[in-house]
C-alpha cells in the first residue's frame, strides 16, 4: 500500500510538472486569433490575414456582425486575450478605443509606412479610425448602403431611379405583388434596423442628436421620416422585422425583391450567375436624399493581446495590400487610393460608379461610442411603431427619453 502510494505520488508529481510546463510550450506555439464579422469581402480578408505571413497563421472566427460585436465586447471588457486581431468599423472603434481596449498603432504605421506603401490610404479614410488623435486600425474597405433596383422591371414599366421618396414609394407600389416585394426592408434588431432607420432619420429628418447629444430624432421631421419608412413597409417583404442583410441578399438574388437599401459588399453577389437568378438585372443608385450609412471596415489589435504587435501589424498591412484590395474589388470598395481610383476597376464592376457617388452622399453614424447601445431602445420602439403597437410619435418620444436616461448614466 505504501509502495503504491509512493508510486502514485511520484506519478502525480510528474504529471503536475508536465502540466506546469505545458502553458510555456503552448504559448510558444499559440497561433494568433482573430474575430470578424462575416460578409463576402471580410471573408476574403480573413483568409488573407490567416496566411499573410508564412509561419504565423491566424485562426480567424467569422460570425454575423451583431454577434461579433457582442463577443468582442464581452472578451475585451474582461481584459481577455482570447482574440488578438479584431474586425472593427468606425462606430465600434470609438467605443473600444474610449474604453482602452485597443492598441494605438501610430508608431507601427510610421515604422512600416514605406514598406507597405501606407501613404496610399487617403487621410479621410484614416480619420475614421482615429480616436483622441490616435490611429487604431488598418482599413480594409469602405462600405456603404445604396439603392438596389431591378433594371429590367424598371425598364419594362418606364421607371427611373427615384429622386424623391414619393417616387420610390410609387415604384414600390407599382412593382409589388405577392411574389415580388416592391421594397426589401430590413428591420431585424439592432444592427439591420439601425442601418435602415439611419437613412430615413438623416435623409428626411434632422439626424439623431442635437447639441450635447440631446436626442432630436423625435421632432416633427423625425416622426415624418419614420412615417415614410412605415408607408414603404406596406410593400415590403414578409417578416421584414426579422430580416437582415443575408435574407435581403437572398431575396434579391432569387428575384423576389424589386428595390431596397443594401450594402456595396452585397452588390458583386448579384452578378454571380451561380447564386443569382437576376445576374445582370440589378442596378444601383444613390437613394433619394442620400445620407444613407457609410462605414469603414478594418482590423485592429487588441490591447490585451500578448502576441508580438509588430508581427500583427505586418500581418494586417500585408493582408490589406494593393494586390489583395484589387482581388476583392468585386465585393468591396477599396480603401487604398491607388485601387479606388483605378479606371479599369470602374469599368469592370458595374456597381462602382453608383457606390462612389453613394460614398459622397452617405453619412456615418454619429460619433458617439454608445450609439449602438442607444440603438437597442431606438430600434425596439421603431419596430413597435411599424408593428402598430404604438404610434410613431409615441414610439420616438419613448426612445428619446430612454436614450437620454442612458446617456445621462454614461456621463453625458
Amino acid at each position, binding site marked *: 500500500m505504501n509502495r503504491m502510494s509512493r508510486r502514485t505520488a511520484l506519478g502525480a508529481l510528474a504529471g503536475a510538472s508536465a502540466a506546469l510546463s505545458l502553458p510555456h510550450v503552448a504559448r510558444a506555439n499559440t497561433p494568433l486569433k482573430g474575430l470578424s464579422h462575416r460578409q463576402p469581402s471580410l471573408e476574403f480578408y480573413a483568409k488573407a490575414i490567416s496566411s499573410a505571413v508564412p509561419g504565423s497563421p491566424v485562426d480567424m472566427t467569422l460570425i454575423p456582425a451583431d454577434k461579433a460585436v*457582442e463577443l468582442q*465586447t*464581452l472578451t475585451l*471588457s474582461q481584459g481577455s486575450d482570447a482574440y488578438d486581431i479584431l474586425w472593427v468599423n468606425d462606430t465600434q472603434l470609438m*467605443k473600444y478605443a474610449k*474604453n482602452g481596449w485597443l492598441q494605438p498603432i501610430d508608431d507601427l504605421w510610421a515604422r512600416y509606412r514605406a514598406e507597405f506603401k501606407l501613404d496610399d490610404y487617403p487621410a479621410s479614410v484614416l480619420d475614421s479610425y482615429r480616436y483622441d488623435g490616435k490611429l487604431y486600425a488598418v482599413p480594409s474597405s469602405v462600405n456603404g448602403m445604396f439603392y438596389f433596383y431591378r433594371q429590367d422591371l424598371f425598364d419594362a414599366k418606364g421607371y427611373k431611379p427615384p429622386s424623391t421618396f414619393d417616387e420610390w414609394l410609387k415604384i414600390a407600389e407599382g412593382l409589388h405583388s*405577392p*411574389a415580388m*416585394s416592391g421594397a426589401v426592408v430590413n*428591420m*431585424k*434588431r*439592432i444592427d439591420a434596423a439601425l442601418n435602415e432607420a439611419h437613412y430615413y432619420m438623416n435623409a428626411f429628418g434632422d439626424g439623431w442628436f442635437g447639441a450635447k447629444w440631446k436626442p432630436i430624432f423625435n421632432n416633427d421631421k423625425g416622426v415624418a421620416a419614420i412615417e415614410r419608412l412605415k408607408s414603404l413597409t406596406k410593400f415590403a*417583404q*414578409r*417578416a*421584414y*422585422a*426579422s430580416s437582415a442583410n443575408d*435574407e435581403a441578399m*437572398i*431575396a434579391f438574388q*432569387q428575384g*423576389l425583391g424589386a428595390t431596397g437599401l443594401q450594402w456595396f459588399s452585397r452588390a458583386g453577389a448579384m452578378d454571380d450567375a451561380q447564386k443569382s437568378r437576376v445576374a445582370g438585372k440589378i442596378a444601383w443608385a444613390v437613394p433619394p436624399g442620400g445620407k444613407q450609412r457609410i462605414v469603414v471596415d478594418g482590423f485592429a489589435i487588441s490591447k490585451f493581446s500578448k502576441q508580438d504587435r509588430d508581427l500583427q501589424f505586418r500581418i494586417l498591412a500585408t493582408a490589406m495590400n494593393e494586390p489583395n484590395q484589387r482581388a476583392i474589388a468585386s465585393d468591396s470598395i477599396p480603401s487604398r487610393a491607388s485601387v479606388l481610383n483605378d479606371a479599369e476597376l470602374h469599368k469592370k464592376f458595374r456597381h462602382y460608379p453608383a457606390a462612389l457617388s453613394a460614398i459622397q452622399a452617405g453619412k456615418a453614424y454619429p460619433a458617439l461610442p454608445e450609439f*449602438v*447601445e442607444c440603438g*437597442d431602445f431606438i430600434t*425596439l420602439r421603431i*419596430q*413597435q411603431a*411599424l*408593428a*402598430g*403597437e404604438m404610434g410613431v410619435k409615441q414610439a420616438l418620444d419613448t426612445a428619446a427619453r430612454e436614450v437620454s436616461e*442612458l446617456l445621462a*448614466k*454614461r456621463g453625458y
Partner: protein
Amino acid sequence: MNTHRGLVWFLAPSLLVLLAMLVYPLGYALYLSLFDFYLPSNAPKFIGVGNYLALLGEARFWSAVYNTFVIVMASVALEFCLGLALAVGLYKLRFGAHGLMVVLFVPHIITPVVAALFLRWIFVGQWGLIDATFWPLGIFTPDWLGDPIWAKVTVVLADAWKATPFMMLVLYAGLQSLDQSLIEAATVDGANGRQLLFRVVLPLMRPIILFVVSIRIMDAFRFFDTIYVLTGGGPGTATETLTLYTYSVGFSRLEVGKASALGVVTLLIVLGLISAFVSFIYRRERGRF
C-alpha cells in the same frame, strides 16, 4: 449508525459540484443584481433593490412576462397533448415501437441553433420551404414570422416540434411502468378507452406527469435560441420573452446588474409556477406530497 455517517462522505463530491456549478453562480447573480453595473466601466455601484424596482416599473418587462407566459403555457400544453398521444400510440403498437420512437426523437437531438436555422428556412417568407411550396399553387400562407399573432404561433410550433419527443419518451416510459393488473381490472369492470385513460392511466402517471411537465416548464422559460433566430423577439415586442429581454439588457446594453436581477426574477417566477403546478396536481392529497 457509524456506517451511515461514513456514507455521508460519498455525497461530498456531488455537493461540491453543486456548490461550484449551482450555488456559487446563483449567489453571484443575486449579488450582482444589487449593483448598477455597466460592464465596460468595471465600476459597480451598490443600489440595493434598485434594479428590481426599476424592472417592476417597466412596461417592457411586463410585456416580456406576458409573452413568456403565453408562449410557455401554449408550448407545454401542446407538447403534453401531442407527447401523450404519441406515447399512447407507441404503447399500443405491437411491433416497431422502438424504431419509430428513435425516428420521432430526432428533432430533440438536433443542436438548438441548427434546429432554429432549419426552422427559419422553413418559415421565412417568400423563399422559405412552406411559402415556396404553396405559393406556386396559388395558396397564400399566413405571414408566419411577420404577423404578431402568427409569430407567436410559429414560435410555439417550433418549440413543440423540438420538445414533444422528450415529452413522448418520458410518458412512454411511464406507461410501461404502470401496474398492468389495475388496467386489466378496470377493463374487466367495463371501462372504455376514454375512462381508462382519464380515470386510471393518467392518475397513476401523476408523478411522471409532474416530473415531465415541470422539466418542460423550466426549460421553456429558458427558451431563447429558437425565438432569437426565428423572430428576434419581434415583430415589435410580440415574441420578446424574459430571456430575450435579459439578453438585450445584458449583451446589447451590457447592464450586468439589471440583467442579473432579471435572471433572479425569472427564477422566482419559475419556482412559483412549479409550486402552483405541484399543488394543482396533488390538490386532493396535499398532505401526501
